[in-house]
């Protein structure tokens, strides 16, 4: 704790100190979780955790993806129709879904559904001494509880994102082809020409990073919760809010990094202006 200097400087110093402290703590926690993953800690619970993270999230992700695609189609149709570019709608809808909206909105939904639930569950275990009980029974609680959740998020959130992307593409096509009567052949031809393998790959790199961030933040918040029902609520709330912000920040830096990488690999690509 900083006790010297003028009050304003002291408060600023305290904030910086707390932030650095938090970063250090989170880094050590993340390394501990990775050690747990390497050791296969908590593998007996992986199926149960995977069922919750993956299978139970399918409806939420499906609805999110479907409506993203449908809304994009409705919003973009007017603009494109005026210019006589109705068949080009597919490129803007599908690139937006696959590159950006699918991964980010699926991660946002999962930060709420999965992240909040993980934090609340671990916080409840902590305040009822179940975490300490694990330590007394010869198990490293951080590794045992966090490793399967981390693995489940890193492996299954990308799969859920693929599903969200698929539903988004289908939602866009449903509205464009069946409601606005855009020619189906040209719609899919344009998609084929515009959505590249690179878009699909970047759309998969992002959710791996989002999944890791959601798992680490949620486990950290849960295992560091304050006592009582309020503590559990705060842990769940913080897990969602922090995960959501980190997903957005990560998305920006990943978009920047991946477009630079693309330029490095293919210097003539139109993304050179990014």
């Amino acid at each position, binding site marked *: *704790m900083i006790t010297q200097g003028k009050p304003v400087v002291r408060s600023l110093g305290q904030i910086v100190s707390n932030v650095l402290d938090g970063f250090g703590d989170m880094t050590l926690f993340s390394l501990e979780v990775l050690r747990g993953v390497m050791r296969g800690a908590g593998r*007996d619970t992986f199926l*149960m955790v995977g069922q919750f993270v993956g299978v139970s999230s399918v409806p939420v992700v499906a609805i999110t993806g479907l409506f993203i695609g449908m809304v994009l189609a409705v919003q973009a149709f007017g603009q494109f129709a005026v210019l006589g570019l109705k068949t080009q709608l597919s490129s803007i809808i599908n690139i937006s879904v696959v590159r950006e909206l699918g991964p980010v909105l699926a991660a946002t939904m999962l930060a709420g559904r999965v992240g909040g639930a993980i934090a609340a569950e671990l916080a*409840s*275990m902590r305040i*009822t*001494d*179940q975490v*300490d*009980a694990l*330590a*007394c*029974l*010869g*198990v*490293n609680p951080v590794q045992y509880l966090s490793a399967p959740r981390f693995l489940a998020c890193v492996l299954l959130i990308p799969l859920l994102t693929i599903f969200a992307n698929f539903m988004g593409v289908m939602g866009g096509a449903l509205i464009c082809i069946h409601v606005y009567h855009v020619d189906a052949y040209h719609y899919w031809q344009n998609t084929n020409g515009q959505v590249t393998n690179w878009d699909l790959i970047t759309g998969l790199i992002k959710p791996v990073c989002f999944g890791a961030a959601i798992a680490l933040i949620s486990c950290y918040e849960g295992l560091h919760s304050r006592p009582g029902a309020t503590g559990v609520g705060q842990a769940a709330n913080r897990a969602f809010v922090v995960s959501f912000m980190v997903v957005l920040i990560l998305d920006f830096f990943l978009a920047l990094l991946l477009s630079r990488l693309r330029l490095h690999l293919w210097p003539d690509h139109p993304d050179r202006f990014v």
Partner: protein
Amino acid sequence: MSQSAATALVSLQQVSMQFDGHPVLHAIDLDIAAGKTVAIIGESGCGKTVLLKLLIGLLRPSVGRVLFDGRVLVDLPERELIQQRLRFGFLFQAGALFDSLSVYDNIAFGLRAQKRPETDIRDIVAQRLREVGLSSQVLNKYPAELSGGMKKRVALARALALDPEVMLYDEPTTGLDPIMTDVINELIRQTRDSRAITSVVVTHEMRTVNKCADRVVMLYPLSRLGVGEHQILFDGTPEELRQCPEPRVRQFVQGEARERLQELARQEAP
């Protein structure tokens, strides 16, 4: 190191503990000899549970050191710390049974973590369950389906499954009816008598003290201590406790509020 510390199985040396700048324990010296049952008594908030968690290395003291079998637990490498912790059994206040596991899986948890064969595990679970007076019908139940007394007994069976050398009980009878309180007290006594086990019992219950303890240590809340007073207000046998002339000890033993109500009201006043 004093001679008693040298022979003690568990030893606290000048241990102080604080949370967010709030002191809970101050300069505690306590040696616990092997095979003895020590009851730690005192008002709520005087640091009894914290002391218990310090003993097993779940908490690191702010100052001082805690020795188990001559070694500082919290300084050991992880693998060794886990091995040493397995020499302890811990009965938590609310049982701390794992909600998502059945009674069988709860009791078997520590054995599975030690990679014991499933046939051995089945025998040990059945035996421990018999020892705590529960039938095999509860094996497939989940903690949410058990009464308070049953949860405590399952938690005791789980703590005993690994044959610990030291049993730590955190308020084992809190929230139980008088009959179930006596059942748990009997189980603590049976556990002590049937194996060469060292026990530390944190409790408010004088019946538990009288029935189970060889030695009683009374802690007093730091906030209510006078200047220069030691936090351990009493250290002796249950018989000596009953005859202790110290008014604060007598007040606790007899369970009398006396002027405490006015004192609490004064503390609450703005």
